[in-house]
């Protein structure tokens, strides 16, 4: 689904590359955590998948296509196969929940009939049924993030990118968001999530890709946030049928309190 072949990225006006010959292969339906310190290149990697930027060297393939070779007018079509969620939700403050989600479909020209059908379904999926008319500021952080996820998922993308989606949320709310993402993942949606949230990564035991100064230093099938936290895990433990998730240990945020 996503393939990086010795990808390097150096931003203009910067000597140090943000990514250095990164090789990465993400299959359809995988759930991948992208971990690493700030500035390690996680966001750059996500930007390359989105084709917000183009790799300096190497090639990035998304859904079977070399994104660097896409003409600029085809890039929107590539992005319609992806959903993106951010730490700061990025909702439109003047639009209610329904309209925020519908916006994503309106601007790619979906019919009103289609919107009227799909948006309530998606709101139901993310657990916001009955809150369609609320404005973003009337919602809690977790609810706002659910709206953002609904907006990212409403067009049923093959890939969901998440840049620290739990970064602004308390551990309990984060757990709820992660359950939602796992549910979306079970619809064979590929999820690539950049995060600092130790607890979440350790608890879910998904594939972990760790970046350090733009280099992939670890790519572990059922890893924890850091190598130190790594426990011996049986293959069986990370079967997709793994039932609901519960925090195995307090997250950093909790420790700080």
């Amino acid at each position, binding site marked *: 689904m996503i393939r990086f072949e010795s990808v390097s990225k150096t931003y203009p006006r910067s000597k140090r590359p943000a990514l250095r010959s990164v090789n990465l292969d993400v299959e359809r339906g995988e759930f991948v955590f992208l971990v690493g310190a700030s500035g390690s290149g996680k966001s750059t990697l996500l930007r390359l998948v989105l084709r917000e930027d183009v790799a300096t060297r190497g090639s990035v393939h998304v859904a079977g296509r070399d994104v660097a070779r896409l003409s600029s007018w085809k890039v929107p079509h590539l992005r319609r196969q992806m959903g993106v969620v951010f730490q700061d939700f990025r909702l439109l403050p003047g639009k209610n929940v329904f309209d925020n989600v519908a916006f994503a479909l309106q*601007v790619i020209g979906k019919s009103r009939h289609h919107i009227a059908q799909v948006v309530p379904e998606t709101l139901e999926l993310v657990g916001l049924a009955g809150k369609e008319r609320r404005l973003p500021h009337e919602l809690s952080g977790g609810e706002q993030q659910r709206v953002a996820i609904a907006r990212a998922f409403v067009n049923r993308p093959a890939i969901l990118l998440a840049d620290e989606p739990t970064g602004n949320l308390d551990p309990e709310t984060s757990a709820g968001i992660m359950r939602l993402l796992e549910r979306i993942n079970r619809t064979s949606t590929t999820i690539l999530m950049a995060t600092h949230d130790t607890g979440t990564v350790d608890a879910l035991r998904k594939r972990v890709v760790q970046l350090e100064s733009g280099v992939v230093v670890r790519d572990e099938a059922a890893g924890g946030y850091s190598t130190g936290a790594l426990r011996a895990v049986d293959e069986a433990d990370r079967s997709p049928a793994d039932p609901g998730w519960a925090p195995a240990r307090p997250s950093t945020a909790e420790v700080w309190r």
Partner: protein
Amino acid sequence: MRVRFLASEILSGLRRNTAMTVSVVLVTFVSLVFVGAGALLQLQVDQMKDYWYDRVQVSVFLCTADSEAPTCTSGEVTPSQRDAVLAELESPTLAPYVESVQFESKADAYARFQEQFAGSAIAESATEDQLNESFRVKLTDPTKYDVVTQFFAGTPGVEQVQDQRRVLDPFFTVLNVATAVAGGFALVMIVAAALLIATTIRLSAFSRRRETGIMRLVGASKLLIQLPFLLEGVLAAVVGAALAVGALYAAVRFGVQGWLVEALPLFGYVGTHQVWLVAPVLVAVAVLLAGTASVTTLSRYLRV
């Protein structure tokens, strides 16, 4: 759906910075009034040329009893002198330049004078005897009037040879200078309008960067993201153009046709139909101006 979406985006954009929109409308309005005024002045010049160059003639004025020119020392022109002048005009030397010759008697001159200055004091005090007899010579090529002028210089009985183009030239000069001045103002105002439109679009793009960012991420086409901004600028400029057309129409309808035609009835003036001729040009200039300013600004300040 998308048409509705575009319309609501444009309206909300225009509402969001009303002051800027109004200033864009006003600046375009003023700049296009100058453009339109320049165009109308040139149409006036063309119209006068068409009108006059058809009628332009060289007048060979013959001496009256009061003439003081050196060629008139013998007093009023004698019939033989008059016949000699006519013979010269019809001679093989001048014939190629002359299309037709018409004799204007004192009575004709008086009638024309009365008509031209009807109602003024000078018409009442003039007498037939003060006016010259003349040959009105129409030339095959109006620019060759020098030939006739030089030919009759010093001929006894001829007081003066006058080319009417000489009389008209100052008018044309005035109108051409006015056109140049209007054009200069138009140019400065158009630069101001372009910069103002660019700034407005830039502000608008900035205040809506959240929406456009989301549109980009969910895969809205480049065109759909940029179009509301582009149309916003174009719409404001077209409103300015419409105001300019309205102002020019009012000026021609009430200023020229309603007043100047009677106050200074020397020649035909531009009419309202010429305003309609200029109107599409003004709208085109507005669209082009706003379009160019928007596109250059968007390519710099709006990521798609």
